[in-house]
């Protein structure tokens, strides 16, 4: 089975209204290569691939397959030309079986349109065996782990004889081990002749598998790079200026423990224990990073602390006072600063001005309000000070917050939360969808808050971020605490923990303090600071 195909994008331009998402992009994907499109979130990579896959029509430019110009009116045409795509958000029907999902759109049928899924099952088994996927054709997709769902997506493309496979941010939802498995699969696919377009902003993975790297910045190709190039060089190409990838933070100076969580359990509306018996402490002047694959109870944990969850039991104490059962407002008044995971939904009001967003939780108190009247002059003054302090790139203080870039929106949220004296600072996904340059800045601010003696809790699904910021790392799996380990714990150990395997079962020493692994019992935090 020899499958080769040369793919070329020539001068692709895509406009959405006045926004130029892709600006004359040229990319050549040689047969049998892993070609990486490297760029930050919002650089235009996904738009480009959606154009290639026929989901968007290009405003200008052409697509060439084996040097012949083609035009795709829809994904059907792209698939017929041998292009398959695995979307960042899986395009699988959760209540269908694997076979039904794979068959959809190109269903083998018997007479009168009756489905013939036998044929599909056979093909799934064939591909599954060839690449060691271990996928059951009759399993319901919603019952499968994310990593397996991704393989179903790959099978979907292969069944349609894809010669070029586009993988859009495929590792965003995977544990480190699953990521390594995916990289292996990519190498196998390449060996069997399938070209791969690998879209990512994660330098480590890109360097590991790519044959060629095309760097995209603000909708333009800024150059190609050699996978062997140093990480810092790739990062600065991606961002457009030199960035320091390593945060130099001083070792933590933990003081007394002022934030205590005991046996915290949150029950979801469907009756599931989404947070299950969590106990941990955070000391003043340290950062506890909560790691875990998305959807393992992180959202509910932060919401429970803030008072946004209804069915909560256990205890959450800050400075000796119980927070559980108090209103959100009372919790904020107790000195909790909170950066929510989705700034567009919970962090900002997009149609409000930057200045208004900067006082969303302070608007009713002096100096911004007196009685029932607000003081716009004070609010504007405050805005100017914060914008300067946090280097928010905005046309003006009265511009609508929704028009800012992701990084600048996040700076607005962070500036607001850090602008009052805090007794606890919680930041959920503090740098998701934020450009590398802003990440650096936001990380420094978080560390600065720690150094002022505030207990800090960071929730992140990005392992790099966790390892960079954490003084201690708590890993969540299915709502339970797998363990709390010191900073500097290896990526492998953390990866296994993210899959639910506590460090003492890993079969090799972690090389760290022995007490690290026992933190799941409430009184074991005793000496596990490094």
């Amino acid at each position: 089975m020899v499958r080769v195909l040369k793919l070329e994008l020539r001068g692709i331009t895509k406009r959405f209204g006045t926004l130029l998402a892709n600006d004359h992009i040229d990319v050549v994907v040689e047969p049998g290569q892993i070609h990486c499109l490297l760029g930050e979130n919002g650089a235009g990579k996904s738009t480009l691939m959606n154009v290639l896959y026929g989901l968007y029509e290009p405003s200008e430019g052409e697509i060439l397959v084996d040097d012949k110009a083609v035009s795709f009116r829809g994904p059907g045409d792209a698939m017929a030309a041998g292009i398959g795509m695995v979307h960042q958000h899986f395009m699988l029907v959760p209540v269908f079986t694997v076979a039904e999902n794979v068959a959809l759109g190109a269903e083998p049928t018997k007479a009168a349109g009756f489905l013939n899924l036998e044929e599909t099952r056979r093909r799934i088994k064939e591909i599954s065996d060839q690449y060691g996927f271990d996928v059951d054709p009759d399993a319901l997709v919603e019952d499968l782990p994310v990593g397996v769902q991704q393989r179903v997506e790959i099978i979907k493309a292969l069944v349609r004889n894809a010669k070029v496979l586009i993988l859009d941010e495929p590792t965003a939802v995977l544990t480190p081990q699953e990521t390594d498995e995916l990289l292996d699969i990519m190498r196998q696919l390449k060996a069997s002749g399938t070209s791969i377009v690998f879209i990512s902003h994660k330098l480590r993975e890109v360097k590991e598998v790519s044959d060629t790297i095309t760097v995209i910045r603000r909708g333009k190709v800024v150059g190609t790079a050699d996978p062997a190039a140093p990480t810092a060089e790739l990062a600065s190409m991606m961002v457009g200026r030199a960035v320091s990838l390593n945060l130099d933070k001083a070792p933590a100076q933990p003081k007394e423990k002022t934030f205590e969580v005991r046996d915290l359990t949150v029950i979801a509306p469907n009756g599931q224990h989404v947070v299950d018996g969590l106990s941990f402490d955070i000391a003043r002047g340290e950062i506890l990073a909560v790691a875990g694959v998305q959807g393992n109870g992180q959202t509910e944990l932060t919401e429970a602390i803030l008072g946004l969850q209804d069915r909560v039991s256990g205890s959450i104490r800050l400075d000796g006072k119980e927070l559980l059962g108090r209103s959100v407002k009372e919790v904020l008044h107790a000195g909790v600063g909170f950066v929510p995971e989705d700034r567009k939904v919970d962090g900002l009001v997009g149609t409000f001005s930057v200045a208004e967003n900067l006082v969303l939780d302070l608007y009713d108190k002096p100096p911004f309000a007196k009685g029932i009247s607000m003081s716009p002059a004070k609010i504007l003054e405050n805005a100017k000070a914060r914008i300067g302090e946090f280097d928010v790139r905005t046309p003006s203080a009265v511009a609508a917050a929704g028009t800012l870039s992701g990084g600048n929106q996040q700076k607005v949220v962070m500036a607001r939360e850090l602008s009052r004296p805090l007794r606890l600072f919680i930041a959920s996904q503090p740098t998701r969808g934020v450009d590398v340059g802003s990440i650096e800045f936001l990380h420094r601010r978080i560390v600065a808050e720690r150094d002022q003696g505030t207990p800090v809790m960071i929730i992140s699904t990005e392992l790099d971020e966790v390892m960079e910021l954490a003084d201690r790392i708590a890993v969540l799996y299915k709502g339970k605490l797998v363990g709390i380990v010191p900073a500097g714990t290896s990526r492998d150990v953390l990866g296994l923990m993210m899959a639910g395997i506590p460090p003492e079962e890993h079969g090799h020493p972690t090389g760290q303090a022995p007490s690290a692994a026992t933190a799941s019992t409430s009184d074991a935090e005793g000496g596990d600071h490094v």
Partner: protein
Amino acid sequence: MSTKVSSPLPGKPQPGNTPAGTGTAAVSGKPVTWRTPVLLTAFGLIALVFFGLMAPNQTASFGISTGEDFFQLPALEVNAFAAGIVLSVLLLGLAAYAVYLKSQNRPAPGWLTVSFIVLFVAAFLIWVVGGARTPSISLAGLIAGSVTLAVPLVFGSLSGVLCERVGVVNIAIEGQLLGGAFTAAIVASMTQNPFIGLLAAAVAGAVVSMVLALFSIKYLVNQIIVGVVLNVLVSGVTGFLFSTVMQANKAQFNSPPGLDIIEIPVLSSIPIIGPILFRQSLVGYLMYVAVLVVWVGLFKTRWGLRVRAVGEHPQAADTLGINVNATRFWNVTLGGAVAGIGGSFFTLVAIDSFTKEISGGRGFIALAALIFGRWNPIGAFFAALLFGFADNLQSIVTIIGTPVPSQFMAMLPYLVTVLAVAGLVGRSRGPAASGIPYVKG
């Protein structure tokens, strides 16, 4: 009860109620709730007090055969008091078993709920009939009449299935039934041909649906609002035309020739089953065919797979080259045609003329049947039968004269609807994208 709606009803695999492999039962899977055991116990006690202890010591008689059957079965005669006690004890036994299962952290199986409902209905029937002035009804007539009353409901809920499975909420079933009824009457009257009237009814239903489809799919207007507006519009237009046109010349515009009852020889004389399956009008036979065709179509064919994909995850369907909005448009249109045929039942089979609001809110009951039937054609069929049964029961019971005031009996079909949808279905899960317009990109 399972909450899966994707798998077809017959031969449906029980979704994993056993905790998945590892972990304790408390965290993995859906926890077993107290709701079913508590509900069953409450209803069991109600049965014991009312249908058992308070039952009159009179014999209730249920006729099984009709005069046309080729062999006669004797009528079933039971003492209301004794039967009430026996049945309510059985009901409490089932409830106790459900409680026992819950204490073992196991859910009540489907057969338990179903047998409970059947026994409860039987106890209720015996109690009502036993307390009547003439304690005798024809069971065959009760069931056959239920099917007759259910026909428009079944068509209505099939229409709902077709629309919701593809992601459009069809609140306009009532309008489609009414439009079908009106058009069937006027066209059949003018052509003096009921078959042309039937066809015209389908077209009328489809036209109402196309308006719904156009506004909700192309112009992204809220589907509920379009549906409600359509119901009001059809009601107003047919009412106006009825008063101005039909009333003025009844002979020409409102005396449709009916569709005759077609009896299939021999088979139609089987007791009970005969009249239900083999003594129907063309619309009645079409109903059985439609239920089977929609079921087979949805779960066994390429068309059905695509329809369900569009209703569950339209973006996934789009990325596989399926035209989401065209699929939605034509399915909603088809759904309207099905409801239109159901509407023709009012004027071509049940009554031989059109009157204002002849559908009488049955479109909404059909909507309830659709949800009670869990978006499954066969489920919807049985749900519609249940509502038809309640409807028929209240009229028969009023005739034979029961101690229960007739106003209360008139509430029965609606009470059953509310209990069925709110109490028994629980949190059932419809197609994920139902009611959400699809916008590319």
